[in-house]
């Protein structure tokens, strides 16, 4: 309760461990509460449920670390799904081209966000809120407000659902999520763009004064987030074997919540991919656990809300004690 933060900052790694402790506590709790919870198939189900939001959260971690925010990831993802449908069904592209096209389209969305933020200088909240609205409208316009089905590509759904380990029900989508996690972690902590994300988030003016081309790197960062949005859109479309033109609103808050629960600061400058993944899992495990234990649904958001508050608070306490 000290009013003035002389920051007894702790490194990312410790913070992740703390969020991890909350995650484990929740896992243990539900394992006792329901015999069906801690089963391989349910755990895979949780990972599957965490995949799309998790991938969005990975990308948005870069943006948040750099001190920005991206509200367009939810509806942007929907739009990328629709574009998958447009490429593969309307334009008859082969599946691989459709997938790459949709991912690049996500990158384009991110690039436009980055342009609006860094070149035009719009506040990230407004720039991406505008994009959120534009993307949600375009999904409807482009799809003609109808789902697009992958008639020509009946196997497209395997992208998400293919069993990697025969017989063991470990879907390809989850593997992709895990691989992307590793990629994101390496990029954020071991490459120049990651370093500059932290630097810009920590003190943008000083970074610019140090001779770093902040405009260009912010463009890059938002574009990276956009690529993740594209991947999430493709996987969501694959899972439902159709590009659904509605929805996505609210997903951005869920993804941002995952990032913040994972210890990334919305002020920028501090955060980690491992934390984000743990944050995404906390939300997914909680939602699944409450359903498996058949808690009435109207109570679920109350519980999720409280757990988020408690998890973040407990983290803070321990961080202080440190």
């Amino acid at each position: 309760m000290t009013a003035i933060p002389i920051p007894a900052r702790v490194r990312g790694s410790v913070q992740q461990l703390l969020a991890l402790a909350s995650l484990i506590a929740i896992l243990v709790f539900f394992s006792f509460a329901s015999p069906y919870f801690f089963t391989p198939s349910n755990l895979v189900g949780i990972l599957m449920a965490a995949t799309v939001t998790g991938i969005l959260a990975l990308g948005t971690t870069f943006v948040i670390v750099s001190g920005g925010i991206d509200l367009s990831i939810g509806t942007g993802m929907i739009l990328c799904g629709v574009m998958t449908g447009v490429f593969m069904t309307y334009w008859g592209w082969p599946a691989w081209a459709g997938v790459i096209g949709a991912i690049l389209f996500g990158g384009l969305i991110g690039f436009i966000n980055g342009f609006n933020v860094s070149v035009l200088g719009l506040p990230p909240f407004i720039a991406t809120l505008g994009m959120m609205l534009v993307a949600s409208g375009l999904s409807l316009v482009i799809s003609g407000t109808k789902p697009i089905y992958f008639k020509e590509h009946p196997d497209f759904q395997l992208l998400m659902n293919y069993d990697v380990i025969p017989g063991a029900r470990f879907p390809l989508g989850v593997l992709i999520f895990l691989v992307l996690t590793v990629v994101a972690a390496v990029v954020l902590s071991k490459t120049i763009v990651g370093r500059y994300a932290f630097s810009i988030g920590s003190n943008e003016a000083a970074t610019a004064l140090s001779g770093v081309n902040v405009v260009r790197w912010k463009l890059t960062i938002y574009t990276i987030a956009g690529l993740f949005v594209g991947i999430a859109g493709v996987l969501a479309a694959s899972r439902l074997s159709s590009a659904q033109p509605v929805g996505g609103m609210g997903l951005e808050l869920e993804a941002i919540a995952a990032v913040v629960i994972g210890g990334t600061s919305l002020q920028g400058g501090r955060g980690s991919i491992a934390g984000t993944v743990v944050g995404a899992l906390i939300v997914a495990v909680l939602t699944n656990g409450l359903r498996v234990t058949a808690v009435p649904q109207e109570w679920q958001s109350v519980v999720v809300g409280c757990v988020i508050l408690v998890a973040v608070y407990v983290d803070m306490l321990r961080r202080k004690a440190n």
Partner: protein
Amino acid sequence: ACSEAAEKPGTDKKPYVALISKGFRHQFWQAVKAGAEQAGKEFNVDVTFEGAQEEGNVEQQIQLLQTVIDKKPGAIGFAAIDSQAAGPLMTQAKNAKIPVIAFDSGVDSDVPITTASTDNLAAAAEAAKHMAEKIGHEGKIAMVVHDQTSVTGVQRRDGFQEYIKKNEPKIQIVDVQYSGDPLKATDLAKAILTANPDLKGIYGSNEGAAIGVLHAVQEKGLTGKITIVGFDSGKDQIDAIKAGTMYGAITQNPVGIGYETVKAAVAAIKGEKLPKSIDTGFYWYDKTNIDDAKISAVLYQ
């Protein structure tokens, strides 16, 4: 057609009929809109069709209604999310002498001249009946309902539940969860299947919910072991029913709803007398009758 006509609604003295629905993003509403536009062409009236951006958002719908009343159309078609909430505006329409036709579900007010709708309670009971027959009148089932508070959500839940309670003592409804978003519905149906390994059937109360259930069952590798009963149509459901992965579904006649609403509106503008309600009907369809002309006419892809 809608937009051309709408650019200058009311000019060249064509009567103007404004439809306010609960939503517009889902295919169901697009089908209603198509029916309405078809009738508009047939009877030579301008038709606009708008719904809440977010289905079920009463506030947004009221805004739409207000804007439309201010435009003084010849008649209004209205599918209320909450009919009481629209009370003051209904009075306002009445004072402005604009006839109101209710559609989709009833409006709890004496202002509307007539109601063109589906009896959702009866339709849901029909779905329950088929579910019970298919699983042999015993065992556990669950429900994924698209919405917890809207009239259609509540009626499609209650109609189903009441039928089972009254007629099927050996069937137990073990869980009711809510989501009309296909992706979310998939995850929650999976959780239901996980928690109830001996489940025999799941009911999905609209297109989004039914698709979610369908994918959940597929992902769980339980295709064929779980009886799925859905609602509305759409390509996914139609294909699944043809392939036998989904048992069957209830369809309303959305095109008919739109068409009948505009037709009644035109009659009201002309001052003709109308019946108190127009039942637009619903049908059970499954593998056996899906290709019947009567059925395929009301299904939308």
